[in-house]
C-alpha cells in the first residue's frame, strides 16, 4: 500500500518528467499517466478504502494535494511551450542566410560530361597548343597544300612560321600518333577557331571533343559500338544512331552521325526540322595516309576517329538559340546552368 513517502516520490517523478518534456505530446502523456482515469494518482485515491482509517485521511489529503500541484505544473509547462515559440521569433519561411553558389559554365559542363563518358571507356585525355603549325593542323591530317578541302575550314593565320589558330582539335591526334605506343585511345577536348562571320549560329571560336583509337583489327563496327555507347550514356537510353556518308580528309570512309531526336523521339519536331534526326558529330576510319605520316603500318593497324562540337550539343541539349551567349558571360545566362 502506498504511504506518504511514496506520494512524495511520485510527485518528484512527475515533476522531473514535466521538466524534461520537450513536446506538448509528452506533457499530455504525463497528464494521462498521473492524472488520467487509470493514472497513478487516481488509482491511489481509488485504493484509499483499503487503508487503515488513520492513514486514509493523511494519504488521501497528500494525494489530492499533489494531484492539484501536478495538474498546475503541466498547465504551466504547456503554457511555456506556447510562449517560447513566440519569444524565439523564428519564421521558418524567411530565406536562409547563405552565400550564393557560383555557376560552372555550360561549355565546361558539357565537356566534362563527355570526358567522363569516354574516360569510363578507357580514353585518356590529351591537350595541345591552340596556335598550331600548318603541318599538324592540315598536312599531317591529309590536307595537301592547295587542296579544296582546306576551304572547308575557314582558317585564322597567325604571324610566325606557318602558324594557324587550330581549326579543330584533331592536330592533337597527329601529335599523339607521332610518338605514342600502340594501341592508343585518346580524346582531345579543347578550344578551336574558325574565321567565320559571327551570327546566332556561328562564332569565331568553338570547342571540340575529338577522339580516336588505333589498334590491330579495329573496324567501323567498333566505331559504331563506341558511339552508340557514348550516345546512350550522354543522351539517355533508347537512342538510335545513323551514319551518313561525308568527307573529312583525315578519315576514309567519313560519316556524319545523327541520333534520333531526343525531343520528339524521332517523330519530327522543330528542333530536328521534322527529320527525326539530329546531326551530332563527324567520324570515320583514320585515313591510311594519316597513319603513314606518323610511321604507323596501315596494313597492320587500323583506327577510328570522331569529333564532337561542344556548343552544338549544348545548344541542342539546353535549347539555346544564340551561340554568342556562350561568350558574353552575361551572369543571367551562366547562372541558369548552376
Amino acid at each position, binding site marked *: 500500500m502506498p504511504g506518504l513517502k511514496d506520494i512524495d516520490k511520485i510527485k518528484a517523478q512527475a515533476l522531473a518528467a514535466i521538466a524534461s518534456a520537450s513536446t506538448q505530446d509528452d506533457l499530455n502523456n504525463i497528464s494521462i499517466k498521473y492524472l488520467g482515469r487509470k493514472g497513478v494518482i487516481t488509482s491511489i485515491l481509488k485504493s484509499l478504502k483499503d487503508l487503515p482509517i488513520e492513514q486514509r485521511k493523511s494519504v488521501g489529503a497528500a494525494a489530492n494535494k499533489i494531484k492539484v500541484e501536478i495538474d498546475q505544473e503541466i498547465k504551466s509547462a504547456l503554457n511555456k511551450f506556447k510562449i517560447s515559440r513566440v519569444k524565439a521569433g523564428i519564421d521558418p519561411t524567411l*530565406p536562409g*542566410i547563405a*552565400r*550564393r*553558389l*557560383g555557376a*560552372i559554365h555550360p561549355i*565546361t559542363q558539357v565537356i*566534362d560530361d563527355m570526358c567522363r563518358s569516354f574516360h569510363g*571507356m*578507357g580514353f*585518356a585525355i590529351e591537350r595541345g*597548343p*591552340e*596556335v598550331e603549325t600548318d603541318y599538324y593542323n592540315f598536312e599531317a591530317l591529309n590536307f595537301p597544300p*592547295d587542296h*579544296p*578541302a582546306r576551304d572547308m575550314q575557314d582558317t*585564322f593565320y*597567325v*604571324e*610566325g*612560321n606557318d*602558324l594557324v*589558330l587550330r581549326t579543330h582539335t584533331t592536330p592533337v591526334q597527329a601529335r599523339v600518333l607521332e610518338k605514342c605506343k600502340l*594501341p*592508343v*585511345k585518346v580524346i582531345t577536348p579543347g578550344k578551336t577557331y574558325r*574565321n*567565320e*562571320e559571327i551570327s546566332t549560329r556561328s*562564332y*569565331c*571560336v568553338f570547342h571540340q571533343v575529338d577522339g580516336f*583509337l*588505333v589498334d590491330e*583489327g579495329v*573496324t*567501323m*563496327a*567498333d566505331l*559504331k*559500338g563506341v558511339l*552508340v*555507347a557514348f550516345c546512350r550514356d550522354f543522351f539517355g537510353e533508347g537512342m538510335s544512331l545513323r*551514319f551518313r*556518308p561525308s*568527307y573529312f580528309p583525315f578519315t*576514309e*570512309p567519313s560519316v556524319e552521325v545523327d541520333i534520333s531526336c531526343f525531343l520528339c523521339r524521332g517523330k519530327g519536331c522543330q528542333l530536328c526540322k521534322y527529320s527525326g534526326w539530329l546531326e551530332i558529330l563527324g567520324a570515320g*576510319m583514320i*585515313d591510311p595516309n594519316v597513319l603513314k605520316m606518323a610511321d604507323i603500318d596501315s596494313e597492320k593497324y587500323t583506327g577510328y576517329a570522331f569529333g564532337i562540337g561542344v556548343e552544338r550539343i549544348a545548344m541542342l541539349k539546353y535549347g539555346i538559340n544564340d551561340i554568342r551567349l*556562350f561568350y*558574353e*558571360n*552575361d*551572369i*543571367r545566362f*551562366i*547562372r541558369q546552368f548552376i
Partner: protein
Amino acid sequence: MQVPYSWIKELADIPWSAEELAERLTLSGAEAEVEELFEAGFENVCVGHIIELEPVEGSDHLKKAVVDSGDEHLQVICGAPNAAKGQKIVLAKVGATLKEGFKIKKAKLRGVESYGMICSEMELGMSEDHSGIIVLEDDAEIGKPALDYFGLDDPVIKLDLTPNRPDMLSAIGVARDSACLAGTKLKRPEFKLEESAEKASDYINISIDDPDACPRYAARIIRNIKIGPSPWWIKRKLLLCGIRPISNIVDITNLVMMEYGHPLHAFDYDLFKNKEILVRRAHEGEKFTTLDSKEHELDPRVLLITDGEKGVAAAGVMGGLDTEVTEKTRNILLESAYFDSITIRKSRQKLGMTSESSIRFEKGADPNVVPAAIDRAAYLMQKYAGGEVLSGIVDCYPKRMDPIRITLRPERVNSFLGTEISKDRIVKILTDLEYGVEDKGTLEVLAPTHAPDVTREVDLIEEIIRIEGYDSIPFVERNSGPLVAVTRKDDELRSEIRRVMTSQGFDEAYSSGLADTDLLAKVMGNGQPQLKILNPIAEDLSVMQSSVIYSLLKSVSHNISRRNVNLCLFELGRGFLPGDPPQENEQLGLIITGASDSDWFTKPRNFNFYDLKGAIDVLVTGCRNPVPEFKYADRIPYMNGMSFDLKFEDRPAAGHAGMIDPEIAKAFDIKQPVFAALLDFETMLNMRNDDIQFRNLPRFPASPKDMAIVVDDDIQAGDIMKEIIKAGGKLLEEVKLFDLYRGKQVPEGKKSLAFAMVYRSDKGSLKSKEVIKLHSNIAEHLKKCFNAEIRES
C-alpha cells in the same frame, strides 16, 4: 549544285519520288534536298487570253487589255509593243508575288484601273528579256497555272556536295549514283552528230605551253550558226538548274556542262587574230578583260588561253570580252579542255572570281569526257542554231590521264568495315558505278577518271559502303585498346579550381581569346608584344590576348551594360605571346566588382581588396597550394599602391592581383572599382601538394591567449605576424589577427592590432607560468622590432 528531278528520271530508271530520291542520295554521300524552285513566284500567275485590246487615251504606248483569266475577265494595262488581241499570254493577277518580291496590286495608270500584269520573261525570272510579253502557243489552256504550263512545277534536287564528289556535279553523275542505288542502268543521252566534209584542223591549230596545267585541249569549229533564243526545253532545264538562259549557243554550253559536268566555252571564231589556240601562263602585268567587263592585271598564276598573241579566256575560269559570242557571231570555236585543279584554284584566287566552270575544274573534272561533251554540244548547236560542224575534233592531249588500276581484297573490305558483303555484291556495286572490275581472286579495279578522288583500296571501300548503306555495319560492343585511362593531375586541378571558385560564389566565364590591339595594350602596357592574327575577322579581334584579365574586363563591361553590376567571375584560359614557337600559357583569372550579396539579414557591402585576397586564400587552400605572399609591385593594369605580385617563397611571381587602374577600367566603359587577379596554372600545378600525410591529433590541451598592440600605421600586419611566429617558436601553434582599429582610442598615425595566440606542447600540458613567459617574450620582441605598445596581454 542543283538539277531537276525529271532530268534524273530521263537518265535513270528509278522507282522513287523526288523526296525518296533525295533521302537515298543523302544516305549514299550527297546531301540532297528537294525544292520547288518557281512555286513562290508563280502563285496567282496563269494562262490568259487577250480578248480585247485598245490604246489608253493620252498615252503613246499603253494599251488597255481585257484578259480572260478562266474564271473572270480582267482589265489590265500593258505597255508591251508586241501585245496583240487574241494572244495567249501569262497573266499575273492581283496577289501574285513575282521574282525579287515584286507584288502585283490593283493599280491606276492614266486614270485607268489595272487588275494584273501581262508578264515578260524577266518578270518571271526566266531571262533578262523584257522587250516584250511572252506569247504562248495558241492551244494553251486558259486559266491553267503558268507553273504547270511551263513545266516549272518540277521538283529540283539541291545537292550540298563535299569536295571529294566532283562526279556529282552533273545530271549524268547524279543519275549514275541513282541508277546504281536502284540497281538499274544509266541511260546516257543518245545523238548522232553529222559533220561536214571540211576539216576543222584546217581552221585551227592548238599548242600547249604548260601541259601540267593543261593536259588536254580540244576544239571544234562550227560555222554559219544563227544566234537566237534556245528552245523551251533547254531554257526550262537551265532555269531549273538555276542558270539564266541567254542565247542558244551559250545556253547549249551551259546545258552540256550541267549534263556531263564538263565546262565548255564558245568563242566568236572570227574575232581571233590568228587561227590558233596557244595555252600559256599569263605574263606579269598582262591585261585581260573577262566577259563580265572586268579588267584584270594578270601574273603567271593565271593560265591563259590565247590566239597566239592576246588572251581570249582565263582558262577554266571565264572567257574574254573580246571574243564573246554576240548576236553578230556566225562562226564558233567550241572549247572542251581539261585543266589541272590546283592551277585553276590559284588562278581564280588571283582573279578573285569563281564560276560554275572553275568550281568543276578545281574539284576535279574528267579529262576523258572531253570528246563526248564537245560532240554533244556540237550536235545541239547544229540542231538548234543551224550550225555546220566541221569534221573532226582538234584534240591536243599531251599528258594522257588513264583510269587508275587498284587491287581490292574483298576480305579487306569486310575486315575494315566489320561487315559481311559478298564478293558478287562488291563487283555489282563497282560495275554499276562504271568501274572496270576483273576478278583474279582479288579484284583488279579500274577507277574511272570521273572519280579523281578514288586512288586507293580504302577509297573503293568507301564507294562500296556508301552504296551498300552504313546501316549494314553492325555495332559491336567490345572495348578495344587500353581499358583504363589515368586521370591527369592538370584535369584534377581544373576541377578543383572550378569547385572552389563556384563554392565561393564566382561564376565561370569563357572567352574567344581574340582581342582588340589597342585595348589589349591598355591592359598589358604599350609596346608589349602581341600575337597578331594575319587575317582578322574584325578590327577589334585582331590579336590573341596575352592575359585573361582582358577578357574578364570585357565580360564585366558587357554585364554592367546589361545592369548586372555585382560580379564575381573566374576564367580558365590561355594567354599568348609571339615567339618561335609562340608562347601559350594557361591562366586562372579572377575578377570582382560591385557589392556583396545581401539579404534580409545581411547588409550589402561594396567589395574591396580583401574580398579578392580572401577568395585567393580559399582558392589556394582548396587546391592544396601554399598561401602566396602579396608583394608590392608596380604592374599594369593595376592602380599604383594597389598592385601586388603573388609569390610562393622565392619562386618567380605565380601571378598578380590588385585593383584595376580606374583609367584602364574606363577604357572598358567600367566606372566602378574592379579587383582582379591572375594566377599561373602551371605554377599552381607544380605547387600542388598531392601527397597528404596524416598527423597525430594533439594529446594535450591548448592554451589560448590574446594580445593587443599599438604600432605605427605603416607597419604591415604580415610583418608583425612573421615576427610573432619567430618569437613564439615551436610552442606557438597558431596566431590569428582578429581585430584592427584606427580611431579615437589610438593616437593619430597609429593603429591597434589584436592577435589570438594558441600555445600547445606535444610533450605535456603547458603550465600557466610557461604560457605567460612565452606570451611576454613575444610582447618584448614586438616592442623591439616595431616599437609596439602592448595594450593588453
